[in-house]
């Protein structure tokens, strides 16, 4: 079989083979045609343009031993290093040590939604830069090191730009990140504060992505590791750790149902991959689970395709307050459709008003202030329960992937002081608060 040299950018190390130490990662394989190529900074198959992903040689035959090694590991994603494309000594490298965020049993929210089974929130706002993006960037940094890149970059809807800036600062790399020019101020400041270069592009996320894809093919982009472009196969694997953690935190048990936000769709596909790996490794019981995808109505190409019974996703121009999910042309959309249908889940969407309501519902019931993407998953959970698609008697995990402080604009108009009073009791009584 011919081996394609799928070079999609300069490879400063000149190395695309076994000299690269990324732990159990054995090769890159095409998700469309199955072609395998050596590890390298590549993301698209030259044969069919299909996305590349990591093929592993995972530990085999001793699930109890593996479980013990994981449980004895650090309280971050590196406890799963044996299952990730990272070198064995990864925990000792300068990095942000993300992960092992709280899995919150949401009994108050469950009562409100009529859930009689277990309802949990996987609250990834607890990561170092307050979104799940720290997980994926931490893996990408290891790949960037392995391939000799000196600048870390990305196209971002905001959260990723902050995660890249922070990770690069800790790792001692230069960073230059690209965002749509009109993002929420919280995300702009959060991305800029780490001292790297932050470039606003006049356009939406898909325009930024296109720009980065062209930059990577230009000599200017040589020596640049774009975490979600030429390092994407590595980067994306970081989302598997959400699946690992959820199962471990449930006592090495699969949830029956998961509700996951969809931007590019990558996270949902990798959560599914992580669950299947745990089953294959014998770390959890092999039984069915359902994955539900959640989008905002103003950017719901995957949800629309699901509802219309389509296998392909028609791009849209986003218009929603859930900017972290505002990817109109989601590259992993077709795979999300496959997974939702294979597992018996669904893909649903909620409008901006429902997103805001859901943010406030989660805050009011569980003390968790989610960003708009969390409002989307909680809002979709409520909608799925009402429609009967999600079974309220089972164990359900809902993802909150970011911190509400980053999207204050969404809730600020309806979340203000109850009253402004003079500093005395009479004034308090007059305000009707006594």
């Amino acid at each position, binding site marked *: 079989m011919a081996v394609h040299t799928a070079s999609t950018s300069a490879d400063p190390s000149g190395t695309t083979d076994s000299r690269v130490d990324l732990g159990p990662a054995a090769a890159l394989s095409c998700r469309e045609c199955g072609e395998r190529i050596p590890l390298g900074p590549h993301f698209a198959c030259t044969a069919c343009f299909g996305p590349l992903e990591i093929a592993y040689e995972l530990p085999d035959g001793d699930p109890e031993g593996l479980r013990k090694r994981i449980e004895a590991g650090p309280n971050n994603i590196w406890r799963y290093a044996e299952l990730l494309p990272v070198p064995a000594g990864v925990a000792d490298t300068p990095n942000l040590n993300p992960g092992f965020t709280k899995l919150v049993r949401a009994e108050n929210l469950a009562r409100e939604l009529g859930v009689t089974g277990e309802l949990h929130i996987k609250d990834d706002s607890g990561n170092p830069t307050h979104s799940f993006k720290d997980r994926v960037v931490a893996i990408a940094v290891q790949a960037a090191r392995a391939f000799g890149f000196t600048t870390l970059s990305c196209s971002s809807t905001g959260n990723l730009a902050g995660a890249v800036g922070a990770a690069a600062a800790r790792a001692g790399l230069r960073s230059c990140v690209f965002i749509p020019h009109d993002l929420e101020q919280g995300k702009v400041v959060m991305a800029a504060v780490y001292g790297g270069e932050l470039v606003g592009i006049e356009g939406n996320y898909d325009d930024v992505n296109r720009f980065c894809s062209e930059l990577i093919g230009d000599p200017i982009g040589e020596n640049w590791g774009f975490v*979600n472009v030429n390092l994407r196969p590595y980067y994306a694997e970081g989302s598997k750790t959400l699946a690992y953690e959820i199962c471990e935190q449930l006592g090495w048990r699969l949830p029956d149902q998961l509700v996951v936000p969809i931007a590019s769709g990558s996270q949902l596909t990798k959560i599914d991959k992580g669950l299947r790996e745990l089953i294959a490794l014998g770390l959890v019981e092999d039984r069915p689970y359902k994955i539900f995808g959640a989008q905002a109505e103003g950017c719901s190409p995957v949800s629309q395709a699901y509802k219309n019974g389509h296998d392909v996703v028609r791009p849209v121009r986003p218009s929603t307050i859930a900017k972290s*999910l505002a990817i109109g042309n989601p590259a992993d959309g077709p795979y999300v459709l496959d997974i939702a249908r294979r597992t018996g889940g669904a893909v649903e969407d909620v409008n901006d008003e429902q997103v805001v309501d859901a943010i406030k519902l989660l805050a009011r019931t569980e003390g968790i202030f989610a960003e708009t993407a969390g409002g989307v998953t909680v809002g979709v959970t409520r909608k799925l329960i009402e429609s009967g698609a999600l079974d309220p008697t089972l164990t359900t995990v809902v993802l909150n992937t970011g911190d509400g402080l980053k999207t204050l604009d969404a809730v600020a108009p309806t979340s203000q002081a109850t009253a402004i009073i003079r500093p005395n009791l009479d004034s308090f009584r007059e305000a009707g608060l006594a």
Partner: protein
Amino acid sequence: MSVNVRIPTILRTYTDGKSEVSAEGANLGEVLADLERNHQGIGARVLDDTGKLRRFVNVYVNDDDVRFAEGLATQTPDGAGVSIIPAVAGG
């Protein structure tokens, strides 16, 4: 109609390493056919067996994604820029 076509790195083996080549055609389908005539093999990388754009390829005529326009029937005015870009995920 002569247009400039930006070639992604993974297809530059067909264009002698050039990142930009010119091609003729009144619409995208004709431009891709002309590209295939001058750079044999490149067409099958961009189009699938049924002659449609592969699902992980994005093509822009000037700044417009052709999926928002007329696909392969999208007009390519003289001097237009055509970009062929592998789809990538992000966030």
